[in-house]
C-alpha cells in the first residue's frame, strides 16, 4: 500500500517536472531570439499575435538592436548594437515603406500624408490605422482594417468633433452619420456582403479630397469608382453631380422635394395614428355604453 503511494508520488513529481521542462522549452522556442522579452514583455506578447511575427520578422528588423540571448541572462547590451529606436509619426512612412513600398507610395499621395507632412498631428500615419505591434492581416476579423470595422476606424477621427473641429480643418464631421443612413451601411449591419465601405469609395491609402481631380470621389471619377467590379459595373457613366453623403436636392418650384415629402408624411402619420387609435377608443367606449344602456 505504502509502496504504491510512493510510486504514485514519484510519478506525479516526474510528470510535474516534465511539464515544467516542456513549458520552459516552449518559452525558450517562442522567445528564443527575443532578448528584448525580459524588459519589454508586453510588446513581445502583443507582437507574437501579429502578422509580422508569423512572417518571421523580428524586433530588430524594425528597431535594430541585438537579438541573441545567452540562456536566461538579461542582455544589457541588447539595445546598443545597431539600435535605431522608434520612428516619429512623420518618418513612420519611411519606416514601414522599407518593406511595404506599394502601400507607402500610395499613402504618400494621400491627403492624410500631406496634412501630416504639413504638421497636422492628428492626420493618420500607418500605425494609426493598423496598430503598432499587433498588426493583423486585413482579413482577420480582429484587425482594425477588417472591412466591417473600417467605418468605425475612419469615424474615430471623421466623426469626432474635437479631433476634427470644423472651424479648424474645414471638414465635415457627419460623414459617418450620413453613411449610416445609406443602404450600404444598413445592409452591412444586417449581414449583407460586398457592400461599399468608406475605403471602397475613398480608397484606403491614397485618400484624396473631393476637389482633387485625381481623387476617387472627384465627380468625373465617380463612374469609375462606383463601377468597380462587384459593385455597379457597366452602367455607371451616369452618376454625376450626385452627392453621396449629403444627398442631392431636387427642387419643385423652389421647394426642396425631400422636405416636402417628409412634412407631408409626418402629418399623414400623426393623423393616421390619431385617427385609428381615436376611432378604436371611441368605438370601444360606445360599445360599452350600449351594453350598459340595453
Amino acid at each position: 500500500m505504502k509502496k504504491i503511494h510512493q510510486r504514485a508520488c514519484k510519478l506525479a513529481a516526474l510528470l510535474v517536472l516534465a511539464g515544467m521542462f516542456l513549458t520552459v522549452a516552449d518559452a525558450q522556442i517562442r522567445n528564443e531570439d527575443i532578448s528584448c522579452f525580459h524588459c519589454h514583455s508586453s510588446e513581445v506578447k502583443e507582437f507574437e499575435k501579429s502578422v509580422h511575427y508569423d512572417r518571421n520578422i523580428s524586433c530588430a528588423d524594425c528597431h535594430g538592436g541585438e537579438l541573441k540571448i545567452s540562456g536566461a541572462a538579461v542582455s544589457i547590451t541588447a539595445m546598443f548594437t545597431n539600435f535605431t529606436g522608434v520612428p516619429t509619426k512623420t518618418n513612420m512612412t519611411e519606416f514601414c515603406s522599407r518593406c511595404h513600398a506599394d502601400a507607402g507610395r500610395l499613402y504618400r499621395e494621400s491627403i492624410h500624408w500631406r496634412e501630416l507632412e504639413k504638421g497636422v498631428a492628428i492626420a493618420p500615419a500607418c500605425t494609426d490605422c493598423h496598430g503598432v505591434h499587433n498588426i493583423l492581416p486585413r482579413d482577420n476579423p480582429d484587425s482594425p482594417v477588417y472591412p466591417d470595422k473600417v467605418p468605425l476606424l475612419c469615424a474615430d477621427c471623421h466623426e469626432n468633433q474635437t479631433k476634427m473641429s470644423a472651424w479648424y480643418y474645414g471638414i465635415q464631421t457627419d460623414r459617418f452619420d450620413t453613411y449610416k443612413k445609406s443602404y450600404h451601411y444598413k445592409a452591412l449591419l444586417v449581414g449583407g456582403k460586398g457592400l461599399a465601405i468608406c475605403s471602397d469609395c475613398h480608397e484606403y491609402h491614397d485618400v484624396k479630397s473631393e476637389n482633387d481631380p485625381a481623387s476617387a470621389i472627384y465627380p468625373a471619377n465617380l463612374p469609375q469608382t462606383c463601377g468597380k467590379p462587384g459593385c455597379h459595373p457597366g452602367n455607371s457613366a451616369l452618376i454625376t453631380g450626385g452627392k453621396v453623403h449629403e444627398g442631392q436636392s431636387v427642387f419643385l418650384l423652389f421647394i426642396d422635394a425631400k422636405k416636402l415629402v417628409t412634412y407631408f408624411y409626418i402629418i399623414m402619420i400623426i393623423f393616421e395614428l390619431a385617427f385609428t387609435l381615436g376611432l378604436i377608443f371611441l368605438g370601444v367606449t360606445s360599445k360599452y355604453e350600449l351594453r350598459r344602456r340595453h
Partner: protein
Amino acid sequence: MGLQFKRFTLNQRIEHILFFTTFILLAYTGFPLKFPDEWWSRLMIASVGGFDNRTLIHHYSGLLMIGVSVYHVVYHLIEKPRFDILFNLKDLKDFQQQIRYFFRLSDEHPKFGRYTWKQKFEYFGAGFGAVIMGFTGLLMWKPFEAMQYFPIGVVQIANLFHTWEAVLASLAVFIGHFYDEHFGKFPNISWVTGNISEEEMREEHPLEYEEVMQNKETDEVVHETDEKRSILVLFGKMVFTIVFLAICIWMLWISYHVLVEAITTYLL
C-alpha cells in the same frame, strides 16, 4: 343564424390572400433593413435565412404585389366595374353621424351600405399605397438603370417615399384593418369563405341588407348551417390577441422612431 350572404367572389378572395401574404412578407423583410441596429432585425433576417434571402423575398414579393394590383384593376375594369366603392356624399354624412354617435351627441348610428366610408378609405389607401410602393420600389431595385432617366436625387426621394409609405400602410393595415375587420369580430373568416352571416349583414351593412332582401337576388344569398363556438375559437382569439398587441407595439415603436428621426433631421 341561417342565412349567409355572399361578400367576396373567389377571384377577390384569391387576390386578397395574395395581396396580404406579399404585404406581410414585404413588411417582414423590409423593416429590419430600416432599423439594422435592433435585435429583432437580426432575428427576423436570420429567420428567413440571411440577408440574400431577405433581398430575394422582398424583391419577388414586391413584383407579385405589383402583379396582383395590376390584375385587380384590369380585371375589375373589364369584368363589371362597381361604382358603389367610390366615395359619395353619403360617406361624409355617415362619418359625421358616426362621430356624433361616438360622442353621444346622437343616439342613431349611421346605416352603412355595402362599403362603409372607412372601408373605402382602406381600399383606396391600399391602392395608392401599392402604386407608390411599386414605383419607388422598382426605382430602388435598379437605381443605376433609373439614373439613366432621372437624377440621383429622384432615387433618393423614392427611398424616402418608400419608407414613409411603408410605415403609413403598415399602420393602417396592422392596426386599423386588423382591429376593424379581424380583432373586433373574431373569428372573421369571410376572407376564406366569402360569406358573412345575416346577423353581421344586418348590423354592419343594413342598407345593403334591405336592398338584397327586397330584390331577393338568389346568388347573393347562400344557405348554410349553424357553426359552433368551440374552445378552439377561444384559443385562437387568445393567440390572435397576443400577436395583434405585439404587432401594435412594434408598429408604434416604428412610427415613433421614424417620426423622431425625421423631426430631428428636418425640423430641428
